[in-house]
């Protein structure tokens, strides 16, 4: 899945030559340093275009046209729910948000993956065990359920890079981490007025 063309563009566009992608060398080093274990295959070490562009050390300048082209590609590739139904069951969404398992070599591949939202985000105000790598989403539902809001939130969950290239957040839809139904349920957990996310602290 490597897009060599993008890699070349990035390599050429770097200012002052402070960093050049040594991805080919790194690939060989990684190949010799890891071993496949259960569902965690060696193929996972290969980067796609987003991963390659977003692996430049912090502060490394990348040309804005490269970024905006890639961002547009990601936006174009977003798959909205075929039936137009964006919202599922917030209670099932709560389970997805709290579940940190899935796709690790130690995880049972027959069980559904979690979204692990709480690892990085504050959501329901009563849950104190939340991380802070991402912004707090408590009260997210106050933004309402207009069509643009539904599409925006879905897109953010499907592929965060469509809006914010090189965000730390996983691409839950685009990478097949969560199913369409799980995404609907997480959408409801965020947006349903009855969801704990949208209640004030007890």
């Amino acid at each position: 899945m490597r897009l060599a063309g993008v890699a070349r563009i990035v390599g050429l566009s770097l200012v002052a030559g402070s960093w050049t992608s040594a991805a080919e060398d790194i690939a060989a080093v990684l190949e010799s340093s890891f071993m496949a274990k259960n569902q965690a295959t060696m193929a996972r070490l290969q980067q796609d275009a987003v991963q390659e562009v977003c692996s430049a050390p912090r502060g490394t300048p990348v040309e804005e046209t490269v970024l905006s082209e890639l961002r547009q590609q990601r936006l174009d590739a977003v798959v909205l729910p075929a039936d137009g139904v964006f919202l599922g069951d917030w209670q099932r969404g709560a389970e997805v948000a709290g579940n940190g398992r899935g796709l690790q070599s130690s995880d049972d591949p027959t069980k559904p993956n979690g979204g692990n939202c709480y690892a990085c985000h504050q959501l329901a105000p009563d849950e104190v065990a939340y991380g802070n790598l991402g912004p707090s989403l408590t009260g997210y539902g106050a933004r309402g359920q207009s069509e643009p809001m539904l599409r925006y939130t879905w897109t953010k969950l499907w592929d965060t890079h469509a809006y914010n290239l090189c965000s730390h957040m996983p691409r839950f839809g685009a990478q097949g981490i969560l199913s369409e139904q799980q995404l609907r349920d997480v959408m409801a957990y965020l947006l349903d007025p009855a969801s704990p996310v949208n209640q004030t602290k007890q």
Partner: protein
Amino acid sequence: MKTVFFWSVCLALSLGAARVPADGVFDQYRDLMGDDNPAVFVIDEGEELWFTAQGPKSATLEACDLGLGSGVTAGAYVRFPRYFADTNEVMDVEARLVHCMTTIQGRDLESVTAKPYSLRGDLGTEIEALVTWLAAESEGETIAPEQTHAAEREMYVLGEEIFFYRAGPHDFSCATCHEQSEMRIRLQSLPDLTSHAGAANAWGSWPAYRISQGLVRTMGWRMRDCFRQQRWPELQMGSTTSIALQTYMAVNAAGGVMSAPGLKR
């Protein structure tokens, strides 16, 4: 005595839980433990293993050169990872120990590296015990990894590049969790390994006794488990990636103090 200790920990944990973040609770736990780190038993075990004749050559590890001369263990750990002329490689402590076991003791590489890190419920491995003792042999010393040889400096550059390498279904790199300060996953504090303070705190506190696992864990294990959580395949002990990342961390930590074995959640 044990019961009193147990309840005072519970009391401290319940008092603490209301107002301090989780790591504060573990700080209090650490304070209560004082010098009573269960890792002391593992240190003793490691020392005993160093002086035990093993393998086809029935040799101890006393002839093992950790960089400061044959058999010199005091202060050796804080100079790792470092270049060794006899192997023409930059090695971490674990790789160097494996080298000594296979050459000096004549042991089989495959059996020595078959299970470097214990699983939950195990008693701990030989590598874990030896590394813990060697870290303790550098306790209080200044972290000062060798960066004189070109190969050592190249290893740092490679480590930095791998640190930011995103891959896997979740697009995670080391940097995802470890390039910002004061960040948490759930309630677990994450060190910023790109900063001196964060790297020094992390590098200086491993190996560590993990309270939740009842085992001493090495930095090699810590990184393997990070990659498991990154959804990557399994990092191999003594691999170039492992040594490059440890070099990146140790050099960023240089000037800090080695206080391992630590005590962690």
